[in-house]
């Protein structure tokens, strides 16, 4: 009998543990599954009692999410036959599609601001993290703690002066303003995570490169950057997810041109109140990329969400 087997859980206890964990996982998935299902329901099915699990799927929610519609007279409808399948769906309410909704625009804003701020945080963060990792910087610990402490402030508290500052600088409701703001929030995460990743690359690699006649810069981008690529990629996804999910600053500082999807989705209004299938469709489209990224990230997840405090 090997020494290992003493602590190895028995088959039965594994089975019990597995059943309990899977039960929890399934229960915890119900809300997510429900929202995805609701996206394919008709408004009547979405609010029926008892809640319907089996229903006739329709793309109505998605059509309503992406279009604006108006009610038309019977004569008009008879004179203009439906142009495509989306039009056909809308016709059952005596409506016609008159144009795209704002959702596409808001989603696109989320993409621009998300990727813009991620790129900037990673660019600045990698430089700073390399310097903190490799060079002697006076008061390095204090500076690092200062960088971290900027995350403790409630967003609403910083929002007051940023609101005033942006108003004076003309940055309110602009993509640039939001990119700079999200970069400032994300950079603490980027520096802390990337410093951890760069710390793990042996110094000897660069020293060998320096002896071979590389300059510091060359050693940095030819030796360190390729080694840190995985770390940089996972840090980038964390920054992206944060910017993607952010709501407080977005709702206070943007309204028309630079508004992102999170403040927009809850305001999707249908005929006679909230159009739940359209809201659910918007939520589904918005949440899916994050779910996919989470699955890709699973190895670095812990490190990312704890600022590198816990490595696995």
């Amino acid at each position, binding site marked *: 009998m090997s020494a290992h087997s003493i602590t190895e859980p028995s088959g039965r206890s594994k089975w019990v543990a597995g059943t309990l964990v899977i039960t929890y996982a399934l229960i915890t998935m119900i809300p997510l599954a*429900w929202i995805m299902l609701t996206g394919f329901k008709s408004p009547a099915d979405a609010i029926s009692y008892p809640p319907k699990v089996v229903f006739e799927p329709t793309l109505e929610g998605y059509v309503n999410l992406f279009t604006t519609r108006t009610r038309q007279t019977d004569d008009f409808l008879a004179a203009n036959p439906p142009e495509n399948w989306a039009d056909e769906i809308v016709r059952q309410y005596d409506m016609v599609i008159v144009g795209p909704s704002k959702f596409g625009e808001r989603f696109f804003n989320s993409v621009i601001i998300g990727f813009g701020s991620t790129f900037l945080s990673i660019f600045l963060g990698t430089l700073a993290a390399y310097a903190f990792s490799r060079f002697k910087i006076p008061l390095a610990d204090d500076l690092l703690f200062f960088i971290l402490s900027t995350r403790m402030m409630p967003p609403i508290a910083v929002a007051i002066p940023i609101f005033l500052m942006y108003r004076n600088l003309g940055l309110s409701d602009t993509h640039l303003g939001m990119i700079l703001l999200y970069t400032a929030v994300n950079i603490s995460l980027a520096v802390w995570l990337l410093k951890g990743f760069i710390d793990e690359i042996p110094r000897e690699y660069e020293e060998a490169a320096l002896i071979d006649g590389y300059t510091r810069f060359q050693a940095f981008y030819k030796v360190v950057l390729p080694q840190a690529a995985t770390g940089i990629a996972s840090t980038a996804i964390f920054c992206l997810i944060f910017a993607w999910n952010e709501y407080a600053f977005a709702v206070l500082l943007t309204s028309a041109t630079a508004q992102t999807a999170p403040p927009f989705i809850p305001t999707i209004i249908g005929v006679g109140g909230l159009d739940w299938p359209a809201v659910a469709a918007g939520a589904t489209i918005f949440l899916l990329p994050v779910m996919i990224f989470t699955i890709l990230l699973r190895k670095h997840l812990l490190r990312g969400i704890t600022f590198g405090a816990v490595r696995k």
Partner: protein
Amino acid sequence: MTDPIATRAAKATPPRVARQIKGLSDRAIAWIFVAPTIFLLLAINIFPLIWTIQLSFTNYKANRLNREPEFIGLRNYERILTDSDIWLNMQATAHFLFWTIALQVLIGFALAWLIHRNFKGSNFWTTVIVLPMMLSPAVVGNFWKFLYQPQIGLFNYIVTFFTRAEPSSFEMLGSVQLAPWSIVIVDTWMWTPFVMLICLAGLRSIPDYIYEAAEIDRASKLRQFFTITVPMVLPFLMLAVLFRGIENFKMFDLVVQLTGGGPGSTTELTSINLKREAFEKWRTGYASAYAIILFVTVFGLASIYVKALNKVKER
């Protein structure tokens, strides 16, 4: 030296710039690398903080541009600390903090402990469990509002299915008694995986030989649990509590979408209250003082806690 892109880039750099870069000392490079980050943080974090401190001593209202703000000393602070409504908000926040952390620690630890048995497929199910935590809190709050609807909501349906109560007999978001619990439930659903992941890292950090030694000493499983597992996971657990504490003290997006602070002000956490003062009533000076008080509270509590955490770690 076979990297064509890098070689091309090196060739494309004008010789004078290349010489300058080459000539930089490590010290200079360090500052060039760190300076942009520090500058950005000074501009977007520290400058605003100082401005908030300054505003907190005035009666400035940001929606009245042409009126000069007056310096009123500590009046804003005095008013906030003696305002009984704000104490109600603080209590709502404390209730939210206490119960979310208690539930997340309990469930999170239990899950981690079970997953640590490494049953077949445990990695896959861990990833599934983790999903809610990565989603946008505002969107999550919004769709839980749908689940909580009386009559049509799935949550009410499931509860009535098991308790046989009338489906319209309770409103999670509309009743003064239930609303504070409705936000606790959603936050627990969303963030238990976070505590679970950290506990799991803690459990995995315990070397097998400690348990093996305990086995040889014929220590019971229960005893092993309380003398090995719990103390060794404790620093990890405390770290998880620190993160959740700071995050939930700042809580805004999820709750604002879910209840909007209502009914009345039963779920009006301090951040939501602060937003009302600052961006609905436009009492900028007053709200600034409020923001400073909150910041000092988080910072103070967090530093005391970190000291305790370090003591536990040293043991």
